């Protein structure tokens, strides 16, 4: 158990270091750009004096590492910003103020986070059920016609961009069949039932795409496990086929699925941006696209870091789960 605790600790420290490195890289990439940040922020029609004023306001005259230091300080201890006449206190973790609205980036993200979390969490439940279920089924029905159909469907799933499947779903279900109204986000705390109904299509769109990858992986690793000696032993002892596939082989397939799920958090976040934009859900993704279009750098950097945080966290948790699920993993 001691070795395990140490492993978890080492993994946590590793994740923290990775996050710090990500913040440095992201900060350098975005704030040391060849294009003049003040010029971009101010817009193409600004006079040189205006650009200079913006640059002073944003502390752009300081060297880069000093500005990064300020940024880090704000993140850990909070920071005061003077916005013309008044002073705004931005408490830790402070990611700066939006160039556009002077709103605190942390508050902005905090307001949008429930939407994105609702979307990704719900979709994740769906894609794990759909993906693992399909994978198990097609491993079980190997060589039969039903397996070929399932393989074909999953292949088509991997080849469909999420916004195409979302568009088609929205048009068919909401437009033609009128089974559901066009999705409009309702907060979970306001009305849980409406929340679920309105998120049903976004969940499905995101989940169907991700499920395809899981089905392929689950099937492959189930087949791999089914070929192993201990499974042959189970069969020789007369354990039923359903139990062999459903319990023993599935346990072997569990670890790779966890690993893929962590890897897929990144791609799912990308998919969530598309889903939010398509269905008009007011989440982090939609805000990010908006911030990119108006070159609101603090918002862009803040969002990238928050998303990076979740991805690194997911990977660290997956590594630990992986070690728990598969005791053969060497803890390093």
């Amino acid at each position, binding site marked *: 158990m001691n070795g395990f605790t140490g492993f978890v600790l080492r993994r946590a420290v590793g994740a923290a270091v*990775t996050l710090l*490195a*990500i913040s440095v890289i992201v900060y350098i*990439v*975005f704030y040391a*750009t060849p*294009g003049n940040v003040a010029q*971009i922020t101010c817009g193409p029609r600004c006079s040189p004096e205006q650009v200079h004023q913006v640059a002073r306001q944003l502390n752009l005259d300081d060297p880069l590492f000093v500005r990064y230091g300020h940024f880090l300080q704000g993140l850990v201890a909070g920071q005061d910003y003077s916005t013309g006449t008044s002073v705004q206190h931005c408490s830790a973790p402070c990611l700066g103020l939006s160039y556009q609205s002077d709103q605190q980036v942390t508050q902005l993200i905090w307001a949008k986070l429930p939407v994105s979390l609702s979307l990704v969490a719900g979709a994740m439940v769906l894609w794990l059920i759909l993906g693992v279920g399909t994978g198990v089924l097609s491993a079980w029905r190997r060589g039969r016609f039903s397996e070929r159909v399932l*393989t074909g469907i999953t*292949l*088509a799933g*991997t*080849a*469909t*961009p*999420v*916004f*195409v499947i979302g*568009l088609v779903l*929205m*048009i068919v279900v909401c*437009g033609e069949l009128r089974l559901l109204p066009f999705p409009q986000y309702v907060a979970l705390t306001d009305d849980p039932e409406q929340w679920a109904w309105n998120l049903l299509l976004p969940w499905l769109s995101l989940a169907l795409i991700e499920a395809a*990858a899981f089905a*392929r992986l689950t*099937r*492959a*690793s189930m*087949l*791999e*496990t089914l*070929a*192993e000696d201990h*499974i042959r032993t189970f069969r020789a002892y007369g354990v039923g086929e359903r139990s062999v596939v459903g319990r023993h082989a599935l346990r072997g397939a569990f*670890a*790779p699925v966890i*690993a*893929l799920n962590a*890897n*897929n958090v*990144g*791609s799912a*976040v*990308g998919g969530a*941006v*598309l889903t939010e*934009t398509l269905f008009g859900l007011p989440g982090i993704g939609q805000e*990010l*696209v908006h911030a*990119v*279009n108006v*070159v609101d*750098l603090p918002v*862009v*950097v803040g*969002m990238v870091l928050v998303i*990076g945080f979740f*991805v*690194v966290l997911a990977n660290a948790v997956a590594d630990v789960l*992986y070690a728990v699920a598969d005791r053969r*993993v060497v803890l390093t």
Partner: protein
Amino acid sequence: MSEALLAARAAGTDTTVPAGSGARQFWRRLRTQHAALVAAAVVALLVLVALAAPLLTALEGQDPTTYHPSLVDSARGGVPVGPLGGASADHWLGVEPQTGRDLFARLVYGARVSLGVALAATVVQVAIGITLGVAAALGKRWVDQLLSRFTDIIVAMPLMIMSLALLAIVPSSFPRPVLVALVIGLIGWGNIARIVRAQTLTLKELDHVSAARLSGWGTWSIARRELLPGIAAPVITYAALLVPSNITVEAALSFLGVGVKPPTPSWGQMLTAADVWYQAAPQYLLLPAGALFITVLALTVLGDGVRTALDPRAASRLRVGTGRRRESKAAGGGTA
């Protein structure tokens, strides 16, 4: 790996591996997979269409950027005039709502953007991946540590999010398709670098490489003459699957309005406004969606076929369990 098993099972390619040159063997194995062959034909056709886009549109007598206000009904919000979304002998697939631009021309020029950006991005990814992967494997310990951690960080950052964000800060004077290709290429090389590093570490210990080193060859010559042939197979395999994934990313970025910008046509961008028009001009939605689907599907099937042809052992490994659980984790991570 799953399709590898299926194909190998159908064709029996994993039984005996006949001797022969690498390339010839590859073609022979690829030829036995019918799905991959059909996919290859589709891909070849798409490439041909993309290359011949100016020729095809000249044949039709249209171009992708000219507005035809007379072909849309401005009183009804810009719905194309005539049945089938304005399809006629002049405009084979109809016209775009509101602008009246020729859809066929936009579709075939869109193929150019899609395939061109994806291929260019893949070339960048492979070039960076090979360079950093080999450097990490052959370099001193601290070089390896530094590059490997850097690769970890690059892999941890979601490709879509990073390219989306990066596209915000580059001056708009830069040619947009080139920019999109560069951004995707500069971010998405992490897994290639990991694969190359792992493969190079294995190859480094082999006799012919040791022999070259003992003969006094420099690191550069060893890398070029002894290692590159050995890492070609896994790199080609992974690159073949990167192309469809890059196509999807480009389409997604253009769909969000930050990728390829008008007037340059792109499939993703065509889909942005398509949902409003699905009743009046269904082909405005169906054509780019279908083109995207077929292209990505064909490239994925071809990629799977290439993998089976290059590594038939991956297929047989699934049959005779060798307990290589760690490998399946790496493979799972690689294809994600």
